[in-house]
C-alpha cells in the first residue's frame, strides 16, 4: 500500500521511469523535471507562492526561499527585507498554516524586534502558538526574552512547559524568581521543566530555590531535582571560575558535597564527585581522596580516573602515597593513570616523578602478575637509566603479559643515560638478557648501536644473540655498518645465521645511497669466498640489482665450480631490475645446462612482465618468443601479453591460438588485448550500453570456471543489454517482466555488467526453458543496490502455467553502492520437480523500496543425468543425514580431524582433502579423520582430537551455528591445535571473533590474490620448528593478498606479489588461549600441494599444533 502510493507520487513527478528516483547528477539535476521547464523564481514570486504553499506541493519554492533567507543574513538591510517579507506571510490571514510554519522556522535567522511583536500576537492563537514559541526561543536578545517572561505568568499546561524550556535554554536569570514559583507545581511536567530551566540558569538565587525544593521532594521529583541541582552547581562553578568568584564556587561545592555525602546510588555520587573535581583546587583533591576509599568499586574506579585532573607534584604524591593501600584491581588502574600522567609530562625526570618511580618500583614485587605488568608499564613512563637492567631481566624471564610490558617499557623509557644503559646491557650478561637489550635497541631506533650489534653478530658461541643482533641490524643498521656486515656474511658457516645475515646485509645495503658503495664490499668479499658464501653474496647482489652489481656477478656465470655457476644463474633470475634482461636472454638461449636455460627464461619473462613501458615490454616478449618452447614458458609469456594492447601484441598472441598446449590462455589473452583497445565507457551515460561479445565471453568463462562441483554453465544473461539468451532446444533464459536500465556512472564503482539491470516496481520475472528433465539446475544471479541502501528482495520459482511459487531465497538486503558496498553474487538450486517440466519461471520480488533490480542471471547444469548428491538435499528439502567421519586407516597416534565439505567452487575439496591427509600422515604419529560437513563442529565430539584442520569456507551457504563457534573456540583455547588451509581464512565472515583465532582473515574489500601462477615462497623464520632447515621454494598457486587482521602473528613464510611487489604472509603461527594455530594460505588445488615443501609445511604445522616436535624423527 505504502509502496503503491509512493509510486503514484513518483509517477506524478515524472520520475518513475528511472528506478533511481533519488539520484541527482552534479551539480544538481532538478529532482522533479517537469514537462516544461519552470520559469526561474524571483523573490517576489517565491514569497507570493509561499502564501498558498501546502505540503502536497513540490518544494521548489521552499528550497529557493531557504537559500534566499540564508544569503540575506549578510547585511542588515537584506535581513530587514527578508524578515519583512516573512512577516507579511505570517500576518496574512489567508496564508496557509504550512506556509506559516515554514516562515516561523526560518524567521529567527533574520528577525528583528518588529517581528518579535508579531510573534507575541501569534501566541494568542492556538494554531500558531507553538511555532511562535519556538521562533521566540530562537531569536536572541532582550526583546524576545521580555515576551517570554511576560507570557510565563498566564501560560498553562503544555504551553507553560514550552515557555519554561525556552527561558531555560536562554538561561534567563531575570526570570529565575517566577520560574521558581513553578517548582512546586502539581503538574509533574511543569515542575520538571521548571527545575531543568532553573538549573540551567544557575545563579545563587536558583541554587537557593532548588535546595529549598529538594528538602521536601520524594521519588521521581527528588530525582528531577537532583539532576537540576547538578546542573545548577555546574553553571555556578563555571561562572565562579570564569569570574574568579570564590563564593559562587564555594556554593557549587557545597551543593555537590551534599549530594556526594548523601546515601544515594553510585551514579549520583560519581556525578557529584566529578562536579567538585571540575571546580578543582583543594576541593577536587578532597573529593577524590574521599571517593578512593569508597565501598562501591564503581565510585572508586571513577575516582582513580579522576585523579588525572588533580595536577602537579602534590597530586602525584597523593596518588603514589595511596597506591599500596589499594586493592590489586585498583592498583592496576592507578598505575595506568600514573603512566599516562608521566607520559604526558614535559619533563618526566623532575622530582615529582623521581618519587613516583620509587612508588612504582615497590609495586613490582606486589605479587599479582597483573599488578606487576601494570607497574612495569608505568616504569616505562617514570623510570630512569638505573631501571634498564631490571627491565631487561624481566623481559627475559617473565610470562607473556609482563614480558610484553617490559619490552614496551624498554622501548619507551625516555630519560638521560637510558640509551647507554641499554647498549651496556646488550654488550654483556646472560644471552637471554642481551637478546632483550638488543631488541630494545631496535625498538628504540637507537643511534650508535652499530658497534655493539656488529660485535654481537660476530660472536660464535651465542646463536640467539647473533640472530637478535642481525635482526636488529636489519632494522636499524646504518650505512657505516654495511661493509662489516658483508664481511660477516661471507664468513658465516651456520645456515640459519647466514639467512639472517643476508637479510641484514640487504636491508642495510639498501640504505647505502651510492650503488658503487653497495657493490664494492661484495666484490671484495667474493674474492676467495667459499661456494656457499658466494651464493649468499650473489643473492645480495640480486636484491640490489643494477649494472654495477651485474658486473660483479658476470664472472661467476663462467666459474669452474658448478655450484657457483648455478648460484649465479639463480641470482640473475631473481634480479631486481631489468638490467639483467639481456644477460638472462642470452643464458636462456645458450646456457649449457637445461635447468639454467629454464631459470634464465623464467627470470627474463618475469622482468619483462614487470616492465612498465608497454612498448618495451612488447619488445622483450617478442625477443623471447623463439626461446619460450615449454608450455609453462608460453603461459608466462601470454600472461604478460594479456596486459598489453595494440595490434602487435594482438598479432603475437594470435600466433599461439593454434598451439594445443596453450590454446585457452591464448584465447584469454586475445580477448583481453582486444578489450583494452576499446575506449572506456563515458561516465554518466544513461543509455543502456549494448551487449559486448568479448565481455560476455570473458564473463561466461569466469562463470564456467566457478561452476559448483559436478556442474557446468549452460547459459548466461547480462540483464539490460540482453533480454534473452540461449539457443533453441537448449537451456535458455528470457525476461518476461522487467525493463532494461543503466545506472549512469556506476561503472566507475564496479564492472558495467552490474550497473546494467532489468527492473520493475514489483517483480522481475525470467523464464528458463529448454531444461533437461533428468538433470539438476542451479540458478546464479547478481544484484546491487547501486543508488540506495534500501532495496531488499526475495527469489521464487514457479511452474510456467499455473501453480504456487516456492521460495528459493528469503528476503535479503542488497549490498548498497551508495554505502560503498560491492555487488553480490548468489546461487540457489532450482527445485527438480519444477525443472523436470522443462521450463520454470523465476521471480525476483520487491520486499522494500524503491523497486526490484537484477544485474545478471545464469544457469548451471549438472554434468550427469542424476542430480549430484550435494544438490539433492537442498532441492528436495530432505533432512541431511548425520555427517559421516571417514576414519583414518591408522590406529593410535594423535588424532587429527580434517573438516571440509563446502568451499568456493574453484576449490575442489574432494580432491585436495585426501592429498592433505596423505601429507600429514607422512608423520606416523598423526592419524587424520575426515568429515565432509562443517556442521559436524556443531554436533560432533571433538574430545578425541588434538588438532582440527580447517579446510572449508562457507561460500554462499550459511556457516554452522553458534554452537560450532563455541566448540571450536573452546577446543583451541583449551590447548588443542588448529590448522587453517588456503581459503579457510574466508570462513565465518559474520563471526568477529574468528580473526582472533585465525590471526588473519579474508577481507573481501582487499585484492584477492595474484593471478594463479608460479611464485617463490621465502622462509622468514628458518629457526621455527615448522620451518627449520626449509629453503625458499617455488610453487604454483594463488598468492593471497587479501588477509586482514591486527593481532600479533609470527610469520614463517612469505611471498612477494608480482602485482604490487609487496610481501604477503604465506604461513604463520599464533597462540590462542592455551592452543596453537598454524595458518597457511597455500593449497588452491592438487597441483598446489605437489611441491614437497608445501606438504612439509602442513605436516609439520599439524604436528606442531598437536604439541609435538615437528622435526623429531618419529
Amino acid at each position, binding site marked *: 500500500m505504502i509502496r503503491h502510493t509512493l509510486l503514484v507520487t513518483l509517477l506524478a513527478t515524472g520520475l518513475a521511469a528511472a528506478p533511481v528516483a533519488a539520484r541527482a547528477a*552534479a551539480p*544538481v539535476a532538478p*529532482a522533479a523535471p517537469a514537462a516544461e521547464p519552470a520559469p526561474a523564481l524571483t523573490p517576489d514570486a517565491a514569497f507570493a507562492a509561499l502564501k498558498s504553499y501546502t505540503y502536497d506541493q513540490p518544494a*521548489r519554492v521552499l528550497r529557493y526561499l531557504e537559500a534566499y533567507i540564508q544569503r540575506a543574513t549578510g547585511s542588515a538591510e537584506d535581513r530587514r527585507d527578508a524578515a519583512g517579507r516573512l512577516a507579511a506571510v505570517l500576518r496574512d490571514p489567508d496564508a496557509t498554516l504550512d506556509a506559516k510554519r515554514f516562515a516561523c522556522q526560518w524567521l529567527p535567522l533574520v528577525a528583528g524586534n518588529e517581528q518579535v511583536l508579531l510573534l507575541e500576537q501569534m501566541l494568542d492563537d492556538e494554531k500558531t502558538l507553538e511555532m511562535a514559541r519556538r521562533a521566540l526561543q530562537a531569536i536572541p536578545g532582550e526583546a524576545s526574552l521580555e515576551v517570554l517572561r511576560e507570557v510565563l505568568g498566564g501560560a498553562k499546561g503544555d504551553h507553560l512547559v514550552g515557555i519554561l524550556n525556552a527561558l531555560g535554554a536562554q538561561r534567563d536569570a531575570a526570570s529565575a524568581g517566577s520560574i521558581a514559583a513553578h517548582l512546586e507545581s502539581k503538574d509533574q511536567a511543569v515542575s520538571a521543566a521548571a527545575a531543568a530551566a532553573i538549573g540551567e540558569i544557575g545563579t545563587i538565587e536558583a541554587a537557593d530555590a532548588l535546595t529549598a525544593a529538594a528538602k521536601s521532594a520524594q521519588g*521521581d521529583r527528588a530525582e528531577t531535582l537532583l539532576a537540576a541541582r547538578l546542573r545548577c552547581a*555546574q553553571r555556578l562553578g563555571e561562572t565562579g571560575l570564569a569570574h574568579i568568584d570564590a563564593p559562587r564556587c564555594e556554593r557549587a561545592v557545597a551543593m555537590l558535597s551534599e549530594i556526594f555525602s548523601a546515601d544515594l546510588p553510585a551514579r549520583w555520587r560519581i556525578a557529584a564527585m566529578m562536579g567538585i573535581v571540575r571546580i578543582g583546587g583543594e576541593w577536587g583533591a578532597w573529593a577524590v581522596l574521599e571517593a578512593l576509599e569508597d565501598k562501591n568499586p564503581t565510585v572508586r574506579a571513577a575516582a582513580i580516573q579522576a585523579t588525572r585532573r588533580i595536577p602537579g607534584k602534590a597530586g602525584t604524591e597523593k596518588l603514589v602515597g595511596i597506591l599500596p593501600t589499594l586493592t590489586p584491581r585498583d592498583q592496576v*588502574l592507578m598505575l595506568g593513570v600514573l603512566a599516562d600522567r608521566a607520559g604526558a609530562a614535559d619533563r618526566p625526570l623532575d622530582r615529582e616523578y623521581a618519587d613516583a618511580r620509587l612508588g612504582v618500583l615497590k609495586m613490582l614485587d606486589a605479587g599479582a*602478575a597483573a599488578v606487576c605488568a601494570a607497574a612495569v608499564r608505568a616504569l616505562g613512563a617514570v623510570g630512569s637509566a638505573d631501571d634498564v637492567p631490571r627491565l631487561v631481566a624481566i623481559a627475559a624471564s617473565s610470562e607473556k603479559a609482563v614480558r610484553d610490558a617490559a619490552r614496551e617499557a624498554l622501548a619507551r623509557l625516555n630519560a638521560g643515560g637510558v640509551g647507554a644503559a641499554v647498549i651496556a646491557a646488550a654488550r654483556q650478561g646472560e644471552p637471554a638478557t642481551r637478546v632483550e637489550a638488543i631488541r630494545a635497541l631496535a625498538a628504540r631506533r637507537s643511534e650508535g648501536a652499530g658497534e655493539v650489534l656488529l660485535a654481537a653478530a660476530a660472536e660464535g658461541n651465542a646463536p640467539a644473540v647473533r640472530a637478535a643482533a642481525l635482526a636488529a641490524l636489519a632494522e636499524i643498521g646504518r650505512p657505516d655498518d654495511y661493509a662489516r656486515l658483508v664481511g660477516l656474511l661471507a664468513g658465516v658457516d651456520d645456515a640459519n645465521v647466514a639467512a639472517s645475515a643476508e637479510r641484514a646485509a640487504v636491508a642495510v645495503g639498501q640504505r647505502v645511497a651510492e650503488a658503487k658503495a653497495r657493490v664494492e664490499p661484495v666484490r671484495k668479499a667474493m674474492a676467495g669466498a667459499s661456494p656457499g658464501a658466494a651464493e649468499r653474496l650473489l643473492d645480495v647482489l640480486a636484491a640490489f640489482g643494477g649494472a654495477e652489481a651485474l658486473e660483479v656477478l658476470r664472472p661467476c656465470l663462467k666459474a669452474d665450480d658448478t655450484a657457483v655457476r648455478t648460484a649465479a644463474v639463480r641470482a640473475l633470475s631473481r634480479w631486481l631490475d631489468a638490467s639483467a634482461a639481456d644477460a638472462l636472454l642470452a643464458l636462456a638461449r645458450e646456457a649449457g645446462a637445461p635447468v639454467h636455460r629454464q631459470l634464465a627464461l623464467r627470470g627474463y619473462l618475469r622482468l619483462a612482465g614487470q616492465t612498465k613501458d608497454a612498448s618495451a615490454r612488447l619488445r622483450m616478449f617478442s625477443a623471447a618468443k623463439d626461446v619460450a618452447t615449454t608450455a609453462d614458458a608460453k603461459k608466462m609469456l601470454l600472461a604478460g601479453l594479456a596486459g598489453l594492447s595494440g595490434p602487435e601484441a594482438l598479432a603475437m598472441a594470435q600466433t599461439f591460438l593454434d598451439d594445443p598446449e596453450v590454446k585457452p590462455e591464448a584465447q584469454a589473452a586475445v580477448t583481453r588485448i582486444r578489450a583494452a583497445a576499446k575506449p572506456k565507457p563515458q561516465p554518466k551515460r544513461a543509455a543502456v550500453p549494448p551487449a559486448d561479445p568479448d565481455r560476455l565471453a570473458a564473463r561466461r568463462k569466469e562463470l564456467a570456471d566457478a561452476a559448483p562441483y559436478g556442474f557446468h554453465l549452460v547459459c548466461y544473461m547480462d540483464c539490460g543489454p540482453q533480454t534473452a539468451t540461449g539457443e533453441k532446444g537448449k537451456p535458455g533464459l528470457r525476461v518476461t517482466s522487467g525493463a532494461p536500465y543503466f545506472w549512469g556512472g556506476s561503472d566507475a564503482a564496479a564492472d558495467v555488467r552490474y550497473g546494467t539491470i532489468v527492473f520493475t516496481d514489483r517483480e522481475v520475472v525470467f523464464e528458463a526453458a529448454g531444461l533437461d528433465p533428468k538433470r539438476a539446475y542451479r540458478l546464479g544471479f547478481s544484484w546491487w543496490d547501486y543508488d540506495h541502501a534500501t532495496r531488499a528482495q526475495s527469489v521464487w520459482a514457479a511452474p510456467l502455467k499455473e501453480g504456487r511459487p516456492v521460495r528459493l531465497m528469503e528476503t535479503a538486503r542488497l549490498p548498497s553502492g551508495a554505502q560503498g558496498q560491492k555487488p553480490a553474487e548468489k546461487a540457489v538450486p532450482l527445485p527438480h520437480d519444477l525443472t523436470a517440466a522443462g521450463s520454470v519461471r523465476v521471480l525476483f520480488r520487491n520486499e522494500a523500496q524503491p523497486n526490484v533490480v537484477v544485474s545478471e542471471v545464469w544457469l548451471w547444469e549438472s554434468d550427469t543425468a542424476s542430480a549430484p548428491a550435494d544438490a539433492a538435499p537442498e532441492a528436495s528439502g530432505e533432512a541431511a543425514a548425520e555427517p559421516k567421519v571417514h576414519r583414518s586407516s591408522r590406529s593410535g597416534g594423535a588424532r587429527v580431524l580434517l573438516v571440509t565439505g563446502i568451499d568456493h567452487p574453484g576449490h575442489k575439496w574432494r580432491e585436495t582433502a585426501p592429498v592433505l591427509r596423505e601429507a600429514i600422515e607422512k608423520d606416523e604419529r598423526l592419524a587424520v579423520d575426515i568429515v565432509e560437513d562443517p556442521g559436524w563442529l556443531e554436533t560432533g565430539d571433538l574430545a578425541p582430537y588434538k588438532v582440527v584442520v580447517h579446510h572449508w569456507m562457507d561460500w554462499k551457504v550459511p556457516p554452522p551455528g553458534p554452537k560450532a563457534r563455541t566448540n571450536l573456540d573452546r577446543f583451541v583455547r583449551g590447548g588443542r591445535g588448529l590448522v587453517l588451509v588456503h581459503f579457510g581464512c574466508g570462513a565465518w565472515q559474520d563471526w568477529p571473533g574468528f580473526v582472533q583465532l585465525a590471526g588473519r582473515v579474508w577481507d573481501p574489500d582487499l585484492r584477492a590474490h595474484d593471478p594463479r601462477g608460479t611464485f617463490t615462497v621465502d622462509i622468514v623464520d628458518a629457526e621455527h620448528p615448522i620451518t627449520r632447515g626449509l629453503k625458499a621454494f617455488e610453487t604454483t598457486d594463488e598468492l593471497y593478498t587479501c588477509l586482514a587482521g591486527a593481532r600479533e602473528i609470527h610469520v614463517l613464510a612469505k611471498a612477494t606479489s608480482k602485482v604490487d611487489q609487496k610481501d604477503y604472509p604465506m604461513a604463520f603461527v599464533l597462540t590462542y588461549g592455551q592452543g596453537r594455530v598454524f595458518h597457511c594460505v597455500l593449497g588452491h588445488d592438487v597441483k598446489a600441494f605437489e611441491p614437497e615443501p608445501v606438504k612439509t609445511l602442513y605436516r609439520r604445522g599439524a604436528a606442531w599444533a598437536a604439541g609435538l616436535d615437528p622435526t623429531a624423527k618419529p
Partner: protein
Amino acid sequence: MAVLHESGDAGSPPGDQVTRGRGVTRRGFLAGAGGAVAGVAAGAAMAAPYIVPASALGAGGATPPSDRIGIGSIGLGSRGTQHLKGLLQADGVEIRAVCDPQQPKCEAARDRAAKAYAGRAQRGSFRGCLATADFREVLDRPDVDAVVIAAPENWHALVAAFAARAGKDIYCEKALSLTVAEGRALVDTVRRTGRILQVGTQQRSGRNFRFACELARNGYLGRLTRVEVGVPGGRALPNVAPEPVPPDIDYDLWLGPAPYTPYNPLKVSFNWYFIYDYCIGWIQSWGVHHVDIALWGAPSLGQGAGLQVEGSAVFPDDGIANTSITWDVRCTTPDGLVLHFTDNRKNPQGCRFIGEKGWVHVTRGGIRAEPASLLTVALGPGAIRLYESNEHHGNWIECMRTRRDPVAPIEAGHAATGLTIVCDIATRLGRKLTWNWPTETFENDPAADRMLSRAMRNPWRL
C-alpha cells in the same frame, strides 16, 4: 490526549495509540510493566557493574552472567542493526532492550536477540529483551546499564542527555549532534554526570588512522601546512506527497524534537540523512569521520580563535532534500594551516596530512605516504603516542568497566561535529566566517551565530 504536535495541527497526530504522559520523563513506567523485570529491580541502585577489567588483569575467558553489562539499542536502521549484530557476539555485554518507532524493525531486532541468546535463556541467565518505540522505557530499565544510539541526528544529543541523566553509559553514533549548541550542552551533561560516552567515529580504532596522526603529530611530515579531507557527496530527493502514518510507525516519536512536517515513506529510512530537519547531510554525517581524523592529527585546527572558514556548496533546488550535494570549504588557522574539506569528487576519499617534508593519506582501504618510507617509521622514546584502541566496541566496553575515557571521547566528537557544521554554515551563508573555538561562536557575526542552535519541538528539551 497528549499534545505532542504543534497545537491545532490539522495533520492529525498519531491518534489514540498515544498513552504516554505529557512530560518528557518516564519514571514510574516500570511500576506497571509487569514481571519481566521485577526480578532484577533490586539491582537498580548500581550503575555499570564494575568488575576487574579482564584485559588489565590478564584474565581470559568469558564474563560470568552476573557481570554482563546490560545494553539497550536505540535506533534500529541499518547502522543500529550492525551494532546489534556486533554486540550480540561480544563478550561481557547483553542486549536487554531494543527501541525504534518503526515496529517491524523493533520486533526483528528483538527476535534477533532472542535467537542469539537462546542458550542463555535456557540456562535462565537471560530474561528476554524489551522491544519498545519509546527510548524512555529503555532508560527506565534498571537492568540496562548502557545504550547504543543510532537514531537520526536530530535525536542524538537528546537521547544521549536523557541517558546520561538516567545514569547510563553511552555509545552515540556520529555526528554527535544536529547543532553546535546542543553538542555543547551534551558535553556538559555527560561530564556533569560522569558517564562514559564513546562516539561512533570508529576510524579512531583503526591502526592506520592512529599511525597517520602520529606521523603528523611527531613531525615526520615536517611542519604541517595542509590537511585534505574528502568524503562522499550528498543527494537530492524527489518531491513526495504526504501520506497517512502507517499503524506500525510511531511517527511522533520518529520526529522527536524536529519540527512537524507530515509523514512520507521515503524519509523514514536512510533518506533522512539529506533533510536538514534531521541531519545536515553527508557534509556532516560522513564528513565528521575524516574531519575527526584531521583534528586528531592536527589539533590546532580545533583550538583557539581566528579560524577562517570560507566555501561554497551546491544544494538541491527542488524535492524534499535540502542539504549540500557537493561542497568545497577551506578553513585556515591564524598560523596558516589549511583544512581543505570537500566531497570526494575534488579531494580523494579520506584524510591527507601534508607537511613540508612529505604527506600521508589514510582511508578505510589503506594508507599511503610520500616518501613511502614514512610507513615504516617506528616511534622512538619520547614520541607523542595517541590512544591505542583496536576495536571500537571493545574499547567502549572496557572503558565502562575501568571508567577511563574511551578513544573517541565526547569532546572530540563535539569538535569534529562542530567543525562540519561550521563548514556547512559557511556554504549556506556564502560569506567568509571566523570561528572562535573557546566561545564556540563566530567572531563579529551575530547573524551567523543564529545558525548554531535550533528550538526543539515541545515538550522536548535537553
